[in-house]
């Protein structure tokens, strides 16, 4: 018989427990530290070997910042809204992180072996929260380099190294503070049971992102008065974070020290409040997030993005719910379009993301048409966003590509499925991109590019279908040979991931650039014909891939 003590005898033994765990894991901890040091060494070596030219270019750009170009005033005009969008995207990323992991996490064994003991939760969880806050602030500082680099490249980095460093420094500081604020908010979200309040916050953030993006696009297209920018800069922490970099790049933010100070106060308050809230994170949430981290890490180690997505859905329960039904068709030709349509209406968030991406693509396309001499970047972004929208809409094809047995009962040959799966994404994109593009063209008079818009849609869908039928990541892809640029398997795996977007976006970028930079109507029709051929070719590639999947 085991003589365990009675529950009422229990004394707080948190210190002994955590001390024992540390002592037991000392040797493995040393091993992990040496492993980490090795990986850091490898990362440093890789950066030095392959990124040396990039570092040199950055140093050159900092010492001699690029001078203002013709577009610089326009960039400065859009900067308040653009920086606000970037800032709120950083906050949104942290809220998304809180949905599946959050700043308060424990390892799966700790969740399973220590959470249902009387160990003091504060002493167990607060150190982990503090570590998350430090990591978030450091990551935020690194993320701050992105807007700084964009402003620098646009000729807004001043005239000397001192100016450029001041711009980079304020951007890094603002982003670090914003990340600290986000960590506190994420801890608050984690400490609450999954309820309507959290969903409401997420919805509010989504609306805010959409509104700010719309303002950014409108600022560029319609030249909103400067007062609109001022309102944005004082509309919340995202605006306070934008003020420092804006002021350093010559924009109008005269009270930027006050804005940055307000952001600092908010960040410190949020981090401190998060520390108190960390104790209140329910054990059920900690267990779920521990499981999530375990599953996601395993999926990431396999270098398989789809498994990462599946693991994410498993832990968040982010599967579509059957909210509405589409009546099944009587004609067999409509079965796959019906299935794809049903899948879309039952996952409204996927449809909403695709719509958002499609709108962003249209807006960026309009921007490129307005400023044709510097259209390559905006066109690339527009086509990538359009491709991502198409990929979201081609979810049915992806499922069939991942599991060919799923389509065994369909009255079609497997290799013809890509063509059937193209119907719904093409129609949806025609609505989501074609509609706004037609309206914009009617408003601005650029109707000559509409045939090209129409031809681009099947190309983007074709690229998405090529990727949908790529199959599973095979072990043999890790085999290969050494090259001066590293092992060939890295290139093989990269190509395996990006074949679809590369084949769709690359040629379309050339065609669009040519069309945008031509004032005559003929090239638009000519490139539209070329694009139609490209779409057909991509469909054939997807068909070939489907055939190989079936025979495998």
């Amino acid at each position, binding site marked *: *018989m*085991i003589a365990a*003590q009675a529950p009422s005898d229990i004394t*707080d033994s948190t210190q002994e427990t955590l001390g024992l765990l540390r002592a037991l894991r000392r040797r*493995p901890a040393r091993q992990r530290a040496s492993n980490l040091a090795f990986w850091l060494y490898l990362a440093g070596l890789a950066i030095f070997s392959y990124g040396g030219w990039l570092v040199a270019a950055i140093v050159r750009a900092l010492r001699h910042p690029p001078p203002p170009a013709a577009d610089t005033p326009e960039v400065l005009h859009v900067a308040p809204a653009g920086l606000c969008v970037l800032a709120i995207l950083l906050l949104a990323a942290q809220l998304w992180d809180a949905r599946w992991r959050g700043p308060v996490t424990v390892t799966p064994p700790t969740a399973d072996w220590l959470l249902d003991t*009387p160990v003091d939760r504060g002493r167990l969880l607060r150190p982990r929260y503090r570590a998350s806050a430090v990591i978030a602030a450091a990551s935020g500082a690194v993320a701050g380099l992105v807007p700084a680099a964009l402003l620098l490249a646009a000729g807004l980095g001043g005239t000397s190294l001192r100016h450029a460093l001041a711009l980079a420094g304020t951007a890094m500081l603002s982003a670090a503070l914003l990340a600290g604020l986000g960590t506190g908010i994420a801890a608050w979200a984690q400490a609450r049971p999954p309820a309507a309040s959290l969903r409401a916050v997420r919805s509010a953030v989504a609306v805010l992102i959409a509104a700010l993006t719309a303002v950014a696009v409108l600022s560029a297209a319609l030249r909103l008065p400067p007062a609109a920018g001022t309102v944005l800069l004082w509309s919340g922490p995202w605006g306070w974070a934008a003020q420092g970099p804006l002021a350093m790049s010559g924009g109008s933010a005269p009270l930027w020290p006050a804005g940055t100070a307000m952001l600092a106060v908010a960040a410190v308050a949020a981090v401190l409040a998060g520390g108190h809230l960390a104790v209140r994170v329910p054990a059920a949430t900690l267990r779920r997030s521990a499981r999530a981290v375990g599953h996601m890490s395993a999926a990431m180690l396999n270098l398989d993005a789809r498994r990462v997505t599946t693991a994410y859905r498993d832990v968040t329960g982010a599967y579509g719910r*059957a909210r509405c039904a589409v009546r099944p068709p009587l004609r067999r030709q409509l079965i796959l379009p019906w299935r794809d349509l049903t899948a879309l209406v039952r996952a409204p968030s996927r449809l909403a993301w695709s719509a958002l991406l499609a709108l962003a693509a249209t807006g960026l396309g309009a921007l490129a048409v307005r400023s044709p001499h510097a259209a390559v970047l905006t066109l690339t972004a527009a086509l990538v966003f359009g491709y991502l929208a198409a990929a979201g809409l081609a979810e049915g094809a992806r499922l069939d590509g991942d599991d060919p047995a799923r389509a065994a009962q369909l009255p079609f040959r497997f290799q013809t499925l890509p063509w059937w799966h193209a119907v719904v994404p093409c129609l949806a994109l025609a609505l989501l991109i074609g509609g706004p593009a037609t309206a914009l063209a009617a408003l601005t008079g650029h109707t000559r590019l509409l045939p090209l818009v129409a031809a681009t849609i099947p190309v983007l869908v074709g690229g998405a279908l090529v990727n949908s039928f790529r199959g599973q990541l095979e072990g043999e892809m890790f085999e290969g040979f050494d090259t001066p640029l590293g092992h060939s398997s890295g290139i093989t795996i990269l190509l395996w991931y990006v074949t679809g977007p590369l084949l769709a976006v690359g040629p379309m970028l050339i065609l669009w650039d040519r069309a945008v930079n031509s004032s005559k109507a003929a090239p638009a029709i000519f490139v539209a014909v070329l694009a139609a051929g490209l779409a057909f070719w991509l469909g054939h590639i997807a068909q070939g891939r489907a055939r190989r999947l079936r025979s495998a």
Partner: protein
Amino acid sequence: MTAGEQPLLALTAVSRSYGALQALKPVSLTLAAGQCVALLGVNGSGKSTLLRIAAGRDTPTSGRVSYLGRPLREDALVARTEIAVAGDVSSTYPDLTVQEHLLLVAVAHGAGQSAPGTVDDALAECRLSDHAAALPGALSSGQRQAMQLAAVLVRPRRLLILDEPEQRLDPGARRWLAGLLVREKDRGVTVLLATHHAELAEAVADKVIVLLDGDVIGHGPPAETLGGIR
């Protein structure tokens, strides 16, 4: 339980739905100190859902759960010190031995100087003494199940909740499990278990509840209820 005596655990009309699916229809259940209740039913009948609610690890869609007359919360200290749950552990520290895992639990529950002795006793009771220095990854599935039971034995407990503890145990180990649960009852520990083995339920339970599609289709003393079902 005599009239006026407070039950240890009381579930009052608890139900659980996941979207449109009702996994558990309203069920009421009380457990007195030293009582053993066994839940029986096919896969998906709602046994594990009911256990998770009884342990405070899931919130019922309707109804309430009280422990010693107070609403049960998993994070409350009383739940962490008095309710032992087995069958929920899926991961282990890859670098700690079986003995070290158990030692950690014993120390966390305030065993202090007596922790090593308690752990040795639990290892012996669960026939794991020969594997004390093994890493969990080297154990068979049955031994891992025994390790989970040992983790329950090294900690104080007033209510023991077990989800299919007989899983992966051979017939001899199942007999040992039945003996162990009877001894727990004799010590005054209340036991709530879900099982697929009617024999185990008959051997240890004072009452069985049979579930089907989330609904109670039979309850009462084991011999009577199981005889009726058969």
